[in-house]
């Protein structure tokens, strides 16, 4: 972890209520999808933890929805502005545990870490099935980018405006009924109720738990949860946890 100064390259509305911020800076310490950064925002005391949606040699992408003061401040920032980020934080997905035909599923802004994961696994010769869920077509993003990855893709929308009508869980059940995937393993990122629902129909997998944090690097114990292996700091031992270790 370092305190890296990132420069905003773009900060655009991606779809209704959701923004994509591209930050340029040193990404050499990032080890994989699922890690996060803790961003200092002018005028707010605590940093704000944000998943690294995507990273390359030049920078990182962050996808966020305006849910409070911090994200509203972020939406008002301009290209050229700089941000202090503790980067990288936490452990990403353990790629060695993911079988060839895993389900990769994300809901809303949680679809983003799944995008990079899908790309890495597909490039490595795996055949994941991506299931992404949105409220409706208006709030959908990255559908074309996901298609371009080349893996199997199912989109679910709550109102049925695109793809399967319902949640990612409905879409996953359908995949099983149709014999397209046995739901043996899933990598999951999204709101808590969605992740819990996925865990109930999946044999095994990895989940991006997130949560309320202060420091983001293991010092304050603010984010500790109880797991099957004992107390775990989401920021340090996670944010990616194995399904069998999570107590919902």
């Amino acid at each position: 972890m370092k305190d890296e100064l990132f420069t905003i390259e773009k900060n655009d509305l991606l779809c209704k209520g959701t923004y994509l911020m591209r930050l340029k800076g040193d990404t050499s310490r990032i080890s994989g999808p699922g890690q996060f950064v803790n961003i200092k925002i002018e005028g707010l005391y605590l940093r704000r933890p944000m998943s690294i949606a995507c990273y390359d040699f030049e920078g990182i992408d962050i996808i966020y929805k305006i849910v409070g003061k911090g994200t509203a401040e972020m939406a008002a920032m301009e290209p050229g502005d700089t941000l202090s980020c503790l980067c990288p934080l936490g452990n990403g997905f353990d790629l060695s545990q993911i079988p060839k035909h895993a389900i990769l599923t994300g809901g809303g802004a949680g679809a983003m870490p799944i995008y990079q994961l899908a790309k890495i696994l597909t490039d490595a010769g795996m055949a994941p099935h991506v299931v992404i869920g949105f409220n409706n077509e208006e709030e959908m993003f990255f559908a074309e980018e996901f298609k371009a990855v080349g893996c199997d893709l199912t989109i679910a929308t709550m109102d049925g405006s695109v793809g399967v009508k319902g949640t990612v869980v409905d879409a996953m059940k359908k995949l099983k009924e149709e014999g397209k995937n046995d739901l043996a393993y899933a990598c999951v990122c999204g709101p808590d109720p969605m992740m819990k629902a996925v865990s109930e129909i999946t044999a095994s997998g990895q989940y991006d738990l997130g949560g309320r944090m202060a420091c983001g690097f293991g010092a304050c114990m603010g984010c500790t949860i109880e797991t099957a292996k004992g107390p775990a700091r989401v920021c340090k031992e996670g944010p990616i946890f194995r399904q069998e270790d999570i107590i919902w």
Partner: protein
Amino acid sequence: MVDTRVSLAGVVLDNPIIPASGTFGFGREFSELYDISKLGSISFKGTTKDPRLGNEQPRIADCQAGMLNAVGLQNPGIGAVLMEEIPRLEKVFPKPLIANISGFSEDEFVALAEAMDKVQAVGIIEVNVSCPNVHAGGVNFASDRKETEKITRAVKAVTHKPVFVKLSPNVTDIADMAKGCEAAGADGISLINTLLGMRIDIKRRKPVLANRYGGYSGPGIFPVALRMVDQVRHAVDIPIIGMGGIATVDDVIEMIMAGASAVQIGAANLVDPWTCSRLVDELPERMEELGIESLDEIRGIA
């Protein structure tokens, strides 16, 4: 060359900069970022007899000029602290440590003090009678002078190490509490712990913290902390470790001018983990700029 050394009841520190309990764990995360042996001392994570998971989530809330926490004394318990944490910490920090202990009864405080008394790496025992986030039958020892005196006396009876009592600001008369500690034999006072606070999520119409209330820390409480250190300095003749919202080298100097012998840095570690390292570097430079040759010269001068 300016002199940054300070003495806490006979324990001499190279400098007055000490990370506060609960914001520095047992130093492991910070030792990966910088050489923590440059610090004056370390007040490690508040230790209880048994391991504690702490309070329900959420435990953290942001607020103006600071934060609320209701971690609730999560720690691995005295056994693991003695067997694992202190041996690991003393390898990267070969100076006297401050052992922060917390109990739910007089017996627990006594047992913890007895155990810490035998640890060579421990220079000072800091008795936390004031964690605002934990309620055993509604008891917060620090709000009752008689209880605080009783615990101080009981701890003093089982250790030869200097005992500092960490006081809560959530009392009517902080000077009276400090006098009680001094009368009961305390070697020093640490203050202030966090101020009890609350935030409400207006969309959920519920408190943000699962514990409802939490301790407010950060720059917002600095003026309150400074005032209380000043009041206590005028009330007692034992050394004070001042804390509460310190983030800059000028805050450190202000706190010493108010009467503190050393300072602790809490919330700032969580926002900028290099804060304490920077303060150790900046203090001699700032002293030189201000024409201060030694910290003794300015202690309580204001």
